[in-house]
């Protein structure tokens, strides 16, 4: 009888833990959906700078926008940094699956009894867009920067950048064409 009571107590404890974790995850995922569904009218994107953008610390959160023919990142703490759009060589889009909740969630999952944390891990993940930028500095040095965006925002950034780059590229192409024609004459 005592054994049954103890076992049922354990099971109820485990269920409570799992319930709390699932609630937490659901909240996080709901927040993320709100972020995805937010209108993309303004070209400011809330992103995480993973690494590479000069003058910004790794894993800094901030706003990425295109202003005055430059890609500008304004971290939540610190001064903004920008790169002229003409200096951007390439942009790649990727996708990454990450666990949500950070360290508190990880600790909670580790503390959950009977491997309950592993079950939660199955559901507590989210897909992000990864944008990789390649650009040159004023000395011609090659830089690479990686940003993490909410799913669906990567293509938005790419299309905005392409729209900004097109006129410049056209001018450059025409100049090259003219030079080629002059040389052939």
């Amino acid at each position, binding site marked *: 009888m005592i054994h049954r009571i103890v076992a049922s107590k354990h099971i109820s404890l485990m269920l409570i833990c799992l319930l709390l974790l699932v609630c937490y995850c659901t909240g996080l995922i709901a927040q993320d959906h709100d972020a995805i569904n937010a209108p993309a009218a303004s070209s400011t994107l809330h992103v995480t700078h*993973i690494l590479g953008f000069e003058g910004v610390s790794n894993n800094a959160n901030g706003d990425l926008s295109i202003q005055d023919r430059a890609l500008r990142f304004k971290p939540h703490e610190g001064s903004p940094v920008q790169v002229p759009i003409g200096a951007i060589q390439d942009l790649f889009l990727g996708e*990454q699956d990450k*666990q949500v909740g950070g360290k508190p969630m990880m600790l909670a999952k580790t503390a959950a009894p009977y491997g309950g944390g592993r079950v939660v891990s199955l559901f507590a993940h989210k897909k992000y867009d990864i944008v990789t930028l390649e650009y040159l500095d004023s*000395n011609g*040095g090659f830089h690479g920067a990686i940003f993490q965006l909410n799913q669906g925002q990567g293509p938005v950034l790419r299309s905005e950048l392409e729209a900004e780059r097109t006129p410049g590229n056209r001018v450059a192409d025409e100049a090259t064409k003219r030079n080629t024609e002059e040389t052939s004459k």
Partner: protein
Amino acid sequence: MKSNRNVSSTGLAAALMIQAVLPSQVLAGVKGSVSPQWSVQVNKVESGTVNIEPAFQVAIYENLLDEVTKTKLFKQVFRDGDRGANDLPNLLILKTTVEAYTPGSETRRAVTTVSGATKLKVQSQLSTREGKIVLQREIAGDGHFFGGNLRATHNLAHNVAGAIKQSGLPEPAPSVAEP
């Protein structure tokens, strides 16, 4: 008798101080005179025949720049294409080619612990501008347990910097004095 004791104890103390200070100064002199004369240019990471995500290539490159700078072996660390490195006399070039890449999964790591690791293996080559190879080694970097998949690139860069540190750089050619 008393004065003799005083003299001997002072002498002993002086000898101990000299012994404690001298080796570190000598070592510092050796390190300071040879290693910092080299500069290094980190080239872009080549993917070779391996299908690797551009984010990983860029992350390896940026982490290499950080880790090589941290070694304090080089006078200057240049990026690929930096015009500042063009006319520099004592320049080493670090080339990295990816040889193997196994994409990992953070979720699989969280659920199973044992699987889902990101694995990277590169061929790292440090050579002079003239093509003389100073270091050539296969180096691996894995991302197990905690953190995102890109953590493997940090571990890899750390291992490359460690290999450079262990290799011991050759003495650079003496610079020619301007007339």
